[in-house]
């Protein structure tokens, strides 16, 4: 697992804003690594069913920070593409991510 997390940190280092926000935005990185499925599941119900629209634990915000851009073209790379933020761990542990059959994989247009 250590190698996966090293790769995962590499993905972050490309985006200085993301590095800044990981330290200030998440209470503890190990906690979010372990608990993110529960956090996301709780938040999705709060947002969709109750209209609570905050940044914390919002999938949209995960993507806004953690999506990388292609060095040559400057275009965003899908967060679930091979070697990217979500798939680097999920592929290793063989857990499929269902989020992106509906959710957008890159930050919103003009973000």
């Amino acid at each position: 697992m250590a190698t996966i997390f090293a790769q995962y940190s590499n993905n972050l280092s490309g985006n200085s804003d993301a590095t800044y926000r990981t330290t200030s935005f998440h209470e503890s990185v190990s906690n979010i690594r372990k608990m993110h499925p529960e956090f996301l599941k709780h938040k999705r119900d709060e947002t969709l069913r109750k209209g609570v629209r905050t940044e914390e634990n919002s999938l949209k915000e995960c993507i806004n920070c953690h999506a990388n851009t292609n060095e040559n073209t400057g275009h965003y790379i899908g967060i679930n593409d091979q070697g990217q933020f979500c798939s680097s761990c999920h592929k290793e542990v063989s857990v499929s991510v269902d989020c992106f059959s509906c959710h957008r994989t890159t930050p919103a247009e003009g973000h």
Partner: protein
Amino acid sequence: MSESINRRDFIKTSTAAVGITTIASGITLTTFAANKDPVKNNKRWGMLIDTKRLSGQEIDIMVNACKQEHGWGSEKHSVGDQKPSWIKKVKVKDRLTQKETSLPLMCQHCEHPPCVDVCPTNASMKRNDGIVLVDRHLCIGCRYCMMACPYDARSFVHEDLTNQKAHMPRGKGTVESCTLCVHKVDEGEQPACVASVNSEAIIFGDLKDSNSKISKTLRKIQSTQIRADLNLNTGVRYSGI
């Protein structure tokens, strides 16, 4: 589902939700804070559509505004009835007088929605503020709701989709319909279709607020619900038909 609000909660919400600043005389800046509190049932969103003031062309503009806002309508593999339609132009004709009227038809955001009654997984749901939605995290694509809806307002996604709008996730195997632009309403804005045509033709607002423009107008003019005989108490009302 009823929810009572005690005095303390009410004060908390009303102070958190809206901050009003006076910049200069006559100009006020209203800022909406991020919605930290769940929506309450002290509001019910609705729409009044005056068909006399809407031309067929304007209804097409509304449909296109909806397509652009939510990203539907460019599905490549869906044919005929498979194509999604969140809002459509419907022509009605009085057989006796031959009078023809066009009207935009979308989810009517019923108080007693049949789609919610029939959903086996609770995916079809009504928010406390009256907006009827599909929770696609729970939707299994059985399409009972599509059969139950008297307005044919719902569609099923038949193909894999990519590049969805960030605020509107959509995917194969789930049902979808007009959300009353819930993402905009939560930010204090109007639905895309309402904003796309002249403000006199469609009034969007809170049906429970007796001082809102929609409530005042509904008190004054003759309006109707489509299929009022079903007693669904729709949130979308029409005048001029």
